[in-house]
């Protein structure tokens, strides 16, 4: 069986397209190299998931979009997510292209950069060249290679040394056409002793839109810096989402992941932190809701290299109807990473007899002088809790909702933008079949 990714471009087409985007030579060569790899590498191994049976082969055709002059004519779904006026920064990708970018004047003056990745490769060539594909490498597997060859649009967010940004930077990725390429690459670079919060939303405009979202998020956290990345995915039933998120954290830096997997279609995500520096910190919180006959694979990983580094991972999944979830947590502590602490929890709540859930906590520890722990559970809504709530006059459906919402609350409450947080609450209600 042919298990390689099929890509819709040959090398000549790719060179021509990249040149037309005015990309520098080195980037064209990296794309071409990745395209060749895509034809030879195999699909990634995803625990207990037969990825080769998913709609994961077609990368889609690049679809050019005209830039938006403002948000007045933006689709309602976009306007609903955006706080007006934009405080920090906003970037919107529509299908294959970024169509709108706005960064507050005060941030621009401080040297913060927010732009699509094609533009960044031209205007901030040294920075992009230094970091692009250094966390998620094209060599890893065919989907990573296909992404590296064909990504379009994307985000470059750079915060210089010592700059602390309070207002979150927001990104929206909107897809409204089947068969198009939808492969944004997000590159976030935070200099030493800086601080930034990034919130994105990946969304389909209708539930019958069929594409592959092959997305990558790379985050580089400088010495002593703090980066928060919040992401909500709400893609269509017919869309397959394959997303790799990865952070490299230097000494005394910290990354915080807040992820809501609210897709209606097949989803495989991997959110990983490499704790490179001594005293580095990673905190990952993931919630997922599965409905219909969805298959979900959510993996969180923390790999400790630095001494006294600390990782915490929490995943909570609610499975309805005939949905299946494989929840993996992998804590890896390398030899020499003394005094580390790695903790993880995976919990799956099943709301129907046909829903399936599997929580796999994995600790791989090559150093003696560390602390690590895990907890995992798969179960149903606690009947005692429902009885207790109902005994106060609350209806069964409301009681179940309170318990489920309470189960997901620790992640929802952490979303830094009010608009995105309340939208996530609405999405959760919808996914739970309440509206």
């Amino acid at each position, binding site marked *: 069986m042919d298990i390689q990714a099929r890509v819709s471009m040959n090398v000549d087409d790719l060179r021509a397209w990249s040149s037309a985007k005015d990309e520098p030579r080195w980037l064209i060569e990296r794309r071409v190299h990745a395209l060749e790899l895509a034809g030879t590498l195999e699909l990634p191994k995803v625990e207990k998931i037969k990825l080769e049976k998913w709609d994961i082969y077609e990368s889609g055709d690049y679809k050019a979009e005209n830039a938006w002059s403002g948000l007045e004519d933006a689709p309602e779904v976009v306007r609903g997510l955006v706080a007006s006026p934009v405080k920090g920064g906003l970037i919107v990708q529509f299908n294959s292209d970024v169509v709108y970018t706005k960064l507050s004047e005060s941030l621009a003056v401080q040297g913060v950069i927010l732009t699509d990745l094609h533009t960044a490769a031209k205007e901030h060539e040294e920075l992009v060249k230094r970091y692009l594909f250094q966390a998620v490498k094209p060599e890893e597997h065919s989907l990573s290679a296909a992404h590296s060859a064909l990504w379009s649009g994307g985000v470059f967010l750079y915060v210089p040394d010592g700059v602390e940004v309070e207002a979150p930077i927001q990104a929206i990725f909107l897809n409204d056409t089947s068969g198009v390429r939808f492969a944004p690459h997000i590159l976030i670079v935070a200099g030493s002793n800086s601080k930034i919060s990034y919130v994105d939303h990946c969304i389909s405009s209708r539930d019958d839109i069929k594409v592959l979202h092959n997305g990558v998020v790379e985050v580089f956290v400088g010495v002593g810096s703090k980066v928060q990345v919040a992401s909500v995915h709400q893609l269509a039933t017919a869309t397959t989402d394959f997303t790799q998120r990865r952070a490299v954290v230097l000494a005394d830096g910290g990354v915080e992941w807040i992820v809501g997997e609210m897709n209606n279609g097949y989803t495989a995500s991997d959110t990983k932190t490499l704790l490179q520096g001594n005293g580095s910190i990673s905190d990952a919180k993931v919630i997922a809701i599965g409905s219909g006959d969805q298959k979900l694979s959510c993996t969180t990983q923390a790999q400790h290299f630095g001494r006294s580094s600390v990782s915490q991972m929490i995943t909570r999944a609610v499975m309805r109807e005939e949905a299946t979830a494989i929840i993996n947590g992998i804590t890896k502590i390398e030899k020499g990473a003394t005094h580390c602490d790695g903790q993880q929890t995976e919990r799956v709540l099943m709301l129907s007899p046909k829903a399936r859930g599997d929580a796999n906590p994995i600790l791989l520890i090559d150093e003696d002088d560390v602390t690590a722990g895990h907890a995992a559970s798969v179960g149903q809504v606690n009947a005692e809790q429902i*009885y207790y709530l109902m*005994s*106060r006059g*609350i209806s*069964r459906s409301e009681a179940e909702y*309170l*318990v489920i919402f*309470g*189960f997901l609350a620790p992640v929802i409450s952490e979303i830094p933008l009010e608009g995105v947080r309340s939208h996530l609450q609405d999405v959760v209600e919808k996914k739970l079949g309440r509206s």
Partner: protein
Amino acid sequence: MTTLKIEELRSKIEGKEILKGVTLEIHGGEIHAIMGPNGTGKSTLASALMGHPKYEVTGGKVTLDNEDLLEMEVDERAQAGLFLAMQYPSEIAGVTNSDFLRSAINARREEGDEISLIRFIREMESKMKGLEMNPEFAHRYLNEGFSGGEKKRNEILQMILLEPKFVILDEVDSGLDIDALRIVANGVNEMRSPDRGFLIITHYQRLLNYITPDFVHVMMQGRIVKSGGPELAHRLEAEGYDWVKEELGITDETVREV
């Protein structure tokens, strides 16, 4: 006038019959206490009346103001005015005490007639103060990490805010120190009214020093075996249960398989 009428109630859990025909009638304004050693079916009576899913009612009849209680879902029983302060209240993470209380209050109001946030907070805070509860408890997750005594106070807070017609207190005194016992008892006494009936289930006389019952019943072997006035509770406290067993010819007071 509010009346809870229990006739020949039988109930089993996991196939084992615990209640073997309980008959009791309680009117508004009355406080009835059910006493008895462990394992005689007291808490089962409370759970069966509220409709706990594990307790199957196998016979008998219960009406609250002539409405058939046993036909109702748990939430409908609460809506009809029944309240059970539980021995072991559930902990529910992620749901704050105040969100829960407001949902419970609004559940018994018509849509569009929900309690305003300001009024709710004002009422909750004043009642919490009366129960000497830390105001911070309003924002904590429901019963999560509460001590035994804090959970019991929280049950009483719910009772006060929900203003039920009929209250069952299931071992509300267990795990309470003397100060907490007094506070809880004050909360109950303030709720005494000619329109409201109480059924207090307890091991010990000590709660009844603070809340004076009108009637005292002794439960053994899944039935009420003896009834009397407050003096019965005093005698049980002083002499234990052996004289009752002797009088009735009971050797093992617990519920046995038949």
